[in-house]
């Protein structure tokens, strides 16, 4: 009886979590005119998806988001890895440096978005994917540094010592041993950085223009003076979360894989 109650409770909680996204999925396949209908599937159509790509330039938004999210990770990760390693292994800058890096994350984005806009406008990088990529790399860097620092702290220093007594320099030990061993960590940090950049709205809104908008900005543009095109928004949301679903599968695999997989006892 207690198990039955537990199961009913779990089913209710699961429904509370799953129903909204399932309703979004359902709405994305329903014609705009029937989107607010209470029927489960009054009519099934792919028109919302087709319209997004043909009328709303969603393909461009998607491409821009992919370029910016991937670019920002590629740009930030090497710096994050090297800084994280310096913090973890050499205690560079001590606790002060670590927490200064973390403190930069404490500012709400809205406080720095206007100064950032002024800066990017001065160097002529507003309304450009490169500008937004650099902004995202800078925004995500402290977070990625902390993730990588935690990973490197978990790697036994014996591995680097072994490499150094085997003839490697400190850089050689980092490059040939620490980086390959940290690949799961780098992948996890990369995926998290990608997700953060993919979801970011405020900087994208301020720093991009009509030709360089990302998916979140594109979704917001579906709210017009004539109201919200809810079926298209639903289709856009489904498209927007697809890469995140794939990414979360990756991150799970890499994190579960563990760190040093049998190198040290």
């Amino acid at each position, binding site marked *: 009886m207690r198990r039955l109650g537990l199961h009913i409770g779990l089913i209710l909680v699961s429904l509370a979590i799953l129903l909204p996204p399932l309703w979004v999925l359902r709405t994305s396949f329903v014609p705009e005119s029937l989107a607010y209908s209470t029927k489960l599937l009054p009519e099934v159509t792919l028109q919302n998806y087709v319209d997004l790509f043909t009328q709303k330039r969603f393909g461009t938004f998607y491409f821009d988001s992919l370029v910016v999210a991937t670019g920002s990770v590629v740009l930030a990760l090497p710096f994050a890895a090297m800084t994280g390693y310096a913090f973890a292994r050499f205690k560079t800058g001590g606790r002060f440096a670590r927490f200064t890096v973390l403190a930069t994350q404490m500012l709400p984005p809205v406080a720095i978005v206007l100064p950032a806009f002024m800066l990017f406008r001065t160097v002529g990088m507003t309304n450009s994917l490169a500008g937004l990529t650099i902004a995202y790399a800078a925004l995500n860097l402290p977070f990625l540094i902390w993730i990588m620092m935690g990973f490197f702290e978990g790697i*036994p220093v*014996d*591995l680097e*010592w*072994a*490499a*150094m*007594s*085997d*003839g*490697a*320099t400190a850089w*050689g030990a980092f490059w*040939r*041993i620490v980086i*390959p*061993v940290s*690949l799961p960590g780098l992948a996890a940090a990369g995926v998290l950085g990608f997700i953060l950049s993919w979801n970011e709205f405020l900087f994208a809104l301020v720093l991009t223009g009509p030709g360089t908008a990302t998916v979140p900005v594109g979704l917001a543009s579906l709210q017009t003076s004539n109201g919200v095109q809810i079926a298209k928004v639903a289709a856009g949301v489904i498209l927007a979360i697809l890469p995140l679903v794939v990414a979360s599968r990756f991150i799970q695999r890499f994190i579960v894989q563990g760190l*040093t*997989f*049998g*190198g*040290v*006892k």
Partner: protein
Amino acid sequence: MASIELDHVSKLYANGAYGARDVDLKIEDGEFVIFLGPSGCGKSTTLRLIAGLESITSGELRIDGVDVTNVPPRDRNLAVVFQSYALYPHMTVRENMGFGLKMRRTPRAEIEAKIQETAGLLGLSALLDRKPAALSGGQRQRVALGRAIVREPAAFLLDEPLSNLDAQLRAEMRLELVKLHRRLGRTIIHVTHDQVEAMTMGDRICIMREGRIIQVGKPLEVYADPADTFVARFLASPPMNLIPADLTAADGTLACRIAGTASIAIPDRHRAAYEPAAGGKVLVGLRPEDLHETQADPAWQPLPVTVVAVETLGVENILVGQVGEEKPIQVSARLSRHFTAEVGRTVTLYADAGPMHLFDPESGKAIPRPSLAARA
């Protein structure tokens, strides 16, 4: 081949703690030296200072007479085997073993030949394409050794390489290491806290405590003539019994009076050495194997012991008992496997005072006397 000389080497950390303190030691070319001590005594730190993995705060380190104090580890030509084995987890056994040679830009064919030769020596030939995660503890340990051997370094630095193995494998690997040392003839420094490894493997033992070297010598010399109570107790299990006593001189004899219990006469050959300490307090150092259940030798002297426990080990029995009445001191005796006694009963054991030591109770230092090991 290499001689290694530590000339008053110290390591001081930023928090003011010493990792190694005024370590002064010369290790001859081809010697097998054991660094022995409890956890945190500085033995692994000293090894890392030799390897160049930590910087020396003061003093000088010489390898083959050349000052290498500030030389990076890669240029010291020393191989280190870590307690954790530190195998590169993303590389196969072959790649692990060849890494050092690759770093030294050895031709590929030569690397492969050396890997094959070393793998054959250590029984690793069938495992060359496996990754460390697919190996057992013993196999990993051999790969770690193989990685060191294949480079043909000037010396091997082994940091508790056997401590993660089970008892049987440890005993096998102990023997393997000794054979390997004979075959390669290279200098080996082996760090351990295991007394059996120390006694059975090395040419010399270097006992450390709180970053300092307490005593250096051949295993039997150190066993027979411990420099102080720390060495006396650390080097064996069960440790040496240390019984407080008064050293008294009367009628031309010198004896240790143990309060309310017994008196153990000092053998004639040690009298001259111990006479200056007469009239003072001492600690009588008696090894458990120097207490016997029967008086096989008339020179052995009776010592009443109250039985606390008898540990039966199969090959022998360890009697744990108490000596003295007011402040009983716990003692151990290594007796025959036939010995039995009821707990709480007082039995008479017979002490062989020949190998007995006297220690100063204040400093813990041994009161000097002619060495038994030197005579042997």
